[in-house]
């Protein structure tokens, strides 16, 4: 099935996907076991899984005839990167303000 590639923010914006990740935060689960917790079609569950997989939030491993989903770090890193981006942004701006005010102080 085709699933769009969404960014980390779009991935976590969906309540069902957040719930899936919450379940996966307890333990790895098969897609079937995960699907049992949701009142939606199996293809719909698969689509969410594909989206989380594409964005690096989960990994999928085939064990026997089952597919196991496990939480993965990459997707979460993207969220942290965003915060880091702003962190650096403000540091550079505050340095600029400091330089401005220091220059102003000189006669």
């Amino acid at each position, binding site marked *: 099935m085709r699933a769009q590639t969404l*960014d*980390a*923010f*779009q991935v*976590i*914006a969906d309540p069902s996907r*957040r719930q899936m*990740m*919450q379940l996966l*935060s*307890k333990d790895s689960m098969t897609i079937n076991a995960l699907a049992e917790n949701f009142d939606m079609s199996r293809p719909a569950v698969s689509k969410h899984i594909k989206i989380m997989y594409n964005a690096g939030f989960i990994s999928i491993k085939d064990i026997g005839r089952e597919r196991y989903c496990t*939480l993965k*770090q990459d997707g*979460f*890193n*993207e*969220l*942290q*990167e*965003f*915060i880091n*981006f*702003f*962190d650096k*942004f*403000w*540091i*550079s*701006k*505050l340095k*600029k*303000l*400091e330089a*401005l*005010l*220091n220059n*102003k*102080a000189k006669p």
Partner: protein
Amino acid sequence: MQKEIKHSWHFNQSPKEVWEYLTRPELLEQWLMKSDFQPIVGHKFRFIGGCNHDDKEAASCEVLEVSPYTQLAYSWRTNSLYDSKPFDSKVVWTLIPKEDGTELRLVHDGFTVLEDAVAHNDGWTRIGNKFAEHLNGVKI
């Protein structure tokens, strides 16, 4: 995971002088960005340009608090780095008078997308911890 940005900066100038640089558009432009800011609660304004020095809107904001020479707060709606989905956050400046100048504190937090993901639902704390665990590589 880290959900807020905090910085504390010392300036040799008085809170009044620092305040000017936080609230006058012609001064803001010199160190932050172009804007149509006005120190009036409820005033909606935009920051233009930013790190790429282009004329794209960097953030659309609304003034939330103006306590002259003491505290200034505005909402900060921006785009994520990877798409055009806007989301909200909040910037708060606090000026603390010191003997030799001013301590300027910045808190940028309330990233709604993150909070929505990490804080809202009951039981969501668990995934919040998991986020942190993943990010820090250590067990909490």
